């Protein structure tokens, strides 16, 4: 394709209201497109939830070139939009008015799949790019590929396999789910996977390898932070967790690992938890985490720093030596890993999926056995006890692509 592109970026949320990794990546790419001279025009359409799941379907202006779409999904099995009239109505009208050459979709969650078909109905020449942020099409369990009841890692979907996780849905029901996703995915021109791991999972699922490329998310062009200044006789003993809490983020693994550190030989380890959305979790998870955290806080091992604003991330990260990503699901391309690398902090992560791909063991970080607090405790002691490890790993970090670089890669994809 040649000539200037007109690109509409569609996302399942607007970062003004929802700070998930997918929303942030989508918005950053929108800003990248808008700043790129090859792009004639760029717009952002973020889904919003004004009435707690009962959408009006209304499309409204957030600010110049940024729109909000009040939309929702109730049927997460088939991923159908609640307000379908607005798909064939207002959304179609918006497309006709904006006349994009490309619609770059970052997620269909909360939006439903239908709008993908509508794009081609309005103009079959509009190219659809879809960036996949997790395993939603493959796995009914919030796209996590973690078994619904046992929390076991899942390696492959299947109609009967999925029926074992969700006995209320028949194997045929899972065939229908895959068929529906596949039919809509057939309308997509190019898929973008932010990790090779995720790309392979979708290829295993049935996506044509030629249609899906791996492209890194772009990061803010921030300066690398200086190493945390050390007091005399102190080591690289400060670890940080950053991100939103969920049952799959593995905070409990980290807390259990801290509890396992032998008294009298803790090497001065201290962990900061910088996390949001604890209050949105189930009462059971909240209680469980509190129960694990309280003795550690009393013992001075743990500092529960709580949520932070986007602008505060650098200052919080400046206070730690290492970033820990203990997730018990596969992850895709966790933004926190890229951010830690931008700021020059090695990462300790679970040895699976997108985490293990983005963090190179022994080069820019360390892996530990997923879900294993004993192994994480050993790793923490190894990090805190070594005088050279941190420098070695910090110097191994490659800077992730900037938003501008990532945008250029995406535009090259559109040219291809």
């Amino acid at each position: 394709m040649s000539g200037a592109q007109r690109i509409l970026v569609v996302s399942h949320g607007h970062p003004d209201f929802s700070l998930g990794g997918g929303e942030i990546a989508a918005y950053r790419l929108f800003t990248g497109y808008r700043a790129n001279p090859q792009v004639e025009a760029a717009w952002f359409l973020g889904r919003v939830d004004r009435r707690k799941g009962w959408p009006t379907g209304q499309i409204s202006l957030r600010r110049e070139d940024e729109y909000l779409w009040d939309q929702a999904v109730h049927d997460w099995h088939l991923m159908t939009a609640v307000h379908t009239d607005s798909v064939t109505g207002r959304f179609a009208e918006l497309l006709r008015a904006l006349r994009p050459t490309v619609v770059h979709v970052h997620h269909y969650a909360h939006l439903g799949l239908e709008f993908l078909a509508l794009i081609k109905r309005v103009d079959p020449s509009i190219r659809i790019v879809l960036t996949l942020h997790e395993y939603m099409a493959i796995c009914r369990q919030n796209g996590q590929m973690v078994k619904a009841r046992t929390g076991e890692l899942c390696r492959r979907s299947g109609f009967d396999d999925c029926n074992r996780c969700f006995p209320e849905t028949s194997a045929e029901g899972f065939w229908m789910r895959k068929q529906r996703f596949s039919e809509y995915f057939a309308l997509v021109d190019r898929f973008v996977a932010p990790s090779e791991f995720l790309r392979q999972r979708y290829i295993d699922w049935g996506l044509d390898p030629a249609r899906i490329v791996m492209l890194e998310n772009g990061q803010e062009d921030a300066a690398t932070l200086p190493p945390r200044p050390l007091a005399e006789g102190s080591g690289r003993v400060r670890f940080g967790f950053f991100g939103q809490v969920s049952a799959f983020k593995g905070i409990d693994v980290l807390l259990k690992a801290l509890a396992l550190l032998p008294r009298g030989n803790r090497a001065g380890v201290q962990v900061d938890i910088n996390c949001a959305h604890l209050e949105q979790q189930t009462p059971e998870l909240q209680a469980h985490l509190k129960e694990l955290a309280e003795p550690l806080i009393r013992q001075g091992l743990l500092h529960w720093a709580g949520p932070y604003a986007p602008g505060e991330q650098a200052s919080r990260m400046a206070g730690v030596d290492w970033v820990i990503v203990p997730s018990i699901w596969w992850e895709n391309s966790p933004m926190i890993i890229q951010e830690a690398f931008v700021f020059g902090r090695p990462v300790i992560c679970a040895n699976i999926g997108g985490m293990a791909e983005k963090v190179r063991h022994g080069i820019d970080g360390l892996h530990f056995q997923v879900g294993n607090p004993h192994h994480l405790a050993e790793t923490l002691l190894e990090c805190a006890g070594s005088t050279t490890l941190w420098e070695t790993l910090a110097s191994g970090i490659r800077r992730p692509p900037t938003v501008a670089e990532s945008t250029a890669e995406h535009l090259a994809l559109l040219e291809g």
Partner: protein
Amino acid sequence: MSDSTGSGLQGGLRAMGLGRRADAGGGTQARVVHVEGAWHIQGLLLVAGWRLSPHIAVRLVAGGTDLQAEVHTLDRGDVAASRSLPSGNGLGFGMVCLAAQARGVELAWKDAVSGNSGVIALELQVDPPLERINFPALGDAGAACLKFLPPNSPVWQMLLARASASTDVCGFARGSVDYCATSEPAGCTLLNGWFFGEPDALVWVEDARGTAVALHGARRYFRSDVQQELAADYAGAWSDTGFLVADTTTRLHGEVYLKAMFGSRIHILSKTRVKVMPDSALEIVRAALEPVSRQSEIRHCAETIAPLVSTLISRDRAQWARSTEHVIEFGPRAASPRVSLVVPLFGRTDFVELQLMAFARDPWLREHAEILYVVDDPRLEADFPRQASEHHLLHGVDFCVISGGRNRGFSGANNLGAAHARAPLLLFMNSDVFPKAPGWLEPLVQTLDTHADIGAVAPRLVYPDGSIQHAGMVFRWRPDLHVWTNDHPGMGFAVGLDPYRELTRVPAVTGACLAMRRADFDRIGGWHTGYLIGDFEDSDLCFTLREAGLHIAYEPGVELIHLERQSFQSIASGDLRLRVTLVNAVIHEHRWRAQLDASAGLQQDSQP
């Protein structure tokens, strides 16, 4: 009234003084036995009388043949008193038997003590008014007539009216009517219940107006619940306690009583209110066959209710013409399509989008086919047009939605769709059948275009897991169920195990995806609508086409996905589903018995 010496008790008195002379041939010697009356009514012979000794045996003969009359003895204190006998015990007798004609009947007697015997010619009163019959003198024989008479005949009702029923605990029978429904307009009644008791006891169901349904010819079956409940009391002596009656001529009203008679005693065993029979044949199958627990007995009970089910089905079909049809066209209709796709919808509509998306990607189909969805479920009519409109806007495939206003079942819905179809070829397709890739329709159309001898062709259907769902059908006798069933050979196997590699003649194919010519469809009168829900419509259609001289073909070169039965799950499942299938199997067998029998041992025809 006739008597060998006189009449009534007066004659009896005179006979007594002369009775000692034993002379088999003479009239006076016969006075030890008195006949008080002999009547022939409705083919029944009734004789009442008494004898001077209970040791005198009596029987009825005609032309030297024993008529096997039932003899009921009764106490005749009046005879004993007038003859100064110590006891009247066993002196009276009432006799009843079937007798086609009234002439030449004699009463033969023999005294076991004295060895004396004699014969008395009977003078029968033919078809007397009932009040002329001396019922007191007949004793239990009067009531015993009931079991020889057709229920509800005037005599039956009059006899019954003379007998009073006891509501006391019955010592010789127990039972209950579990279900009793009458259809006033259809004039039929379904009864389901159980009873057991003395083998000779007479049991019937009777309403407050005296209309009765006798149970002595009823279908009996094993009732596991009765067995379990009462096994302790009765030690399983009566195994087939269940009864099932599907009466297409009788109406019952109000309360119905289950009554039993043994000897002259009549007891009410239970009381039930008559329900209005539901119009739904499915409900009748449920009410009639759900208590039948032995699979081997379901078929026989299905046989019992099949005429009633067929009555309800044809009454239902007669209503179709009165319901309003609506057609909504989403997009312009092709003027001259080559093939019309007819897809009935029942229960759920979430398959439609997936089908339409697959159709949307098929250029040949879009150019040459018209798509007709038939809403065969009034529950869907409120919401489906909106969904359909949305699908049309999203996916850009033109199609038609036909609403029939009521549920017509698979055959009826297909026929309705065909009535609106414009193409010379029809392809009937279930809503849960999905093309795997574009290009599936043209080869089926070509098969019919190039093979004039083929009446219907169907593709291979596979399950979502890729295994065979349909590769042609055959008929199999199921000895456990006592029915012919439609079988899908190779179902669940890898497609590599399909013995067919090319277009092949088969006994029958599935109706889930079947192409045929419009002209043949019209010639055979379309899909047979005499089945419930959906089981044998497709094999019935294939038999009809074969009877018209055409072949049925299977095309393994075309493959689609079939979720199978997903769309039917919401109406009947499990035990009821099996029972409906067996009722359909009985109807199927009644229509195609010779062809089914011929297919035994000849499971697959040769290739064309």
